[in-house]
């Protein structure tokens, strides 16, 4: 079997379910692949190691893709894992925040992603505010605890299938603003990147085909796959992940290889307008459909 190293975007979590299930049911083996899954310590690392050819595929986020391309990293999107935005602007009930305008003068925490200013700016504009009307503070990976401990009034970068559940688990009612409802163009939250040099690598279509099988199986047998996952990752076997597993199901891309070029172009324009990237590149420069 051909060895293929895939670096995740973050620690193993339900967002990776299709890959894990494909592994569970032997879909990769059937395609003649021996897939090794490596989680990184920091989401900024996988694209770099991919560019340096230390791994064959890496998971990242569509917004990041533009920053990578803008800085000239030789990476290209070859597949999509989650084709919905997961990102939200999140507050909790009791903070007096009921709508976007309620954030005026508030403190908003973020986990550095590179695009939080643009996202937040666009969203706040819907409530007649600008980024200057709030104070931003990096809370790293502690979105929920910063919010719960009232160190911040809201956070951007919280996922609707993870952080929102966590808030609920602590008996607090979340106030959720989904990004796509506030002027952010729809985008793919989790994508699969390859090095440009190996875009033609025959293993990639095989990987994507196996991934599709994994997704299909997952959607057909959510309970069984969860049980297997929970057994394999005892440390992840808890109510939160179980809920998340269910919630994420509709988010997975049923055809991972397919590319919606118009959507990619639209988001690129959004970032360019927000001055986060220096030039608008043609989509084919950073995203391809390897099956075509």
């Amino acid at each position: 079997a051909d060895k293929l190293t895939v670096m995740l975007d973050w620690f193993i979590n339900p967002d990776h379910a299709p890959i894990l299930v494909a592994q569970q049911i032997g879909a990769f083996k059937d395609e003649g692949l021996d897939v090794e899954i490596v989680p990184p310590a920091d989401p900024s690392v996988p694209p770099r190691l991919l560019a340096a050819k230390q791994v064959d595929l890496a998971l990242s986020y569509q917004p990041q893709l533009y920053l990578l391309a803008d800085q000239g990293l030789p990476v290209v999107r070859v597949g999509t894992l989650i084709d919905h935005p997961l990102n939200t602007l999140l507050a909790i009930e009791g903070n007096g925040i009921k709508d976007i305008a309620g954030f005026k003068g508030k403190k908003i925490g973020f986990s550095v992603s590179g695009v939080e200013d643009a996202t937040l700016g666009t969203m706040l504009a819907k409530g007649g505010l600008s980024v200057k009307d709030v104070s931003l503070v990096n809370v790293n990976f502690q979105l929920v605890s910063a919010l719960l401990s009232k160190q911040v009034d809201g956070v951007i970068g919280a996922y609707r299938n993870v952080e929102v559940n966590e808030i609920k688990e602590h008996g607090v009612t979340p106030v959720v603003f989904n990004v796509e409802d506030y002027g952010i163009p729809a985008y793919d939250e989790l994508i699969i990147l390859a090095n440009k040099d190996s875009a033609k690598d025959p293993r990639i279509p095989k990987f994507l085909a196996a991934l599709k099988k994994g997704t299909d199986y997952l959607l057909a047998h959510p309970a069984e796959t969860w049980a297997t996952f929970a057994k394999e990752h005892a440390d992840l076997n808890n109510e939160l992940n179980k809920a998340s597993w269910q919630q994420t199901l509709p988010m997975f891309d049923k055809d991972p290889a397919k590319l919606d070029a118009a959507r990619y172009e639209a988001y690129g324009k959004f970032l360019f307008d927000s001055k986060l990237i220096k030039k608008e590149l043609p989509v084919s420069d950073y995203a391809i459909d390897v099956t075509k």
Partner: protein
Amino acid sequence: MTAGRTLRLGRGGRGLLIFVGLILIWWGLTLLFRVPSYMLPTPDRVAVALWNGRGYLAHNALITICEIMLGLGFGLLLGASLALAMMFSPLFQRWMMPVLVVSQAIPVFALAPLLVLWFGFGLASKVIMAMLVIFFPVTASFFDGLRRTETGWIDLAKTMRASPYAQLRHVRLVAALPAFGSGLRVAAAVAPIGAVIGEWVGSASGLGYVMLNSNARMQTDVCFAALFLLSLMAVFLWQLVDILLRRILYWVPDASHPAGRSA
């Protein structure tokens, strides 16, 4: 004999008492201030997490122990060699010291991708990371010790036709041992940190990984269970080093008890 006995018993008992005491304080604090569990879980929850994840934790703890020992070993080696080189060559010292200081100022995190790039995902990059954290205190204190050796002792050895190596082995090294001991103590205390930092660089095992992982998932109880194991290791390592040093430094006067000398 009897004195030694009571002392050792006292030590063990003290350790236990401190242990229990710290846990009680921790418990009391969490209860008193109603600290939410995402900030600081209660000891009972941590104990449960410890028990439930025993296999998983033990496995990862073993890996971390390996890294600590290797990192400590190489860190000591590197630190001692650098100190010696600096002592033997003022030239080297003058040129190397600033470089070493810079090396300390660069947070290892910034280097992490580079290290993985160069040394891969395996044990190597982690051990190197631990080594980077450890070597500097050792170098600094050992070099200070070597530098402050009574010149008369070295002079005398010279008159006895001691080769530079013999001077080193029989006089300088021994005379610098107390200072080296200081450095070793610090190194032993920070070694676990080094290993943990190393584990955060693109690998999927070890207590550091467990901590980061569970922290990101809000499983603070698991995180603290790992932290607990790590602290345990550190204390054992420290005790080991302490006992070792007390053996080796039999000839160093101890003026630490100003009250009486009869202890």
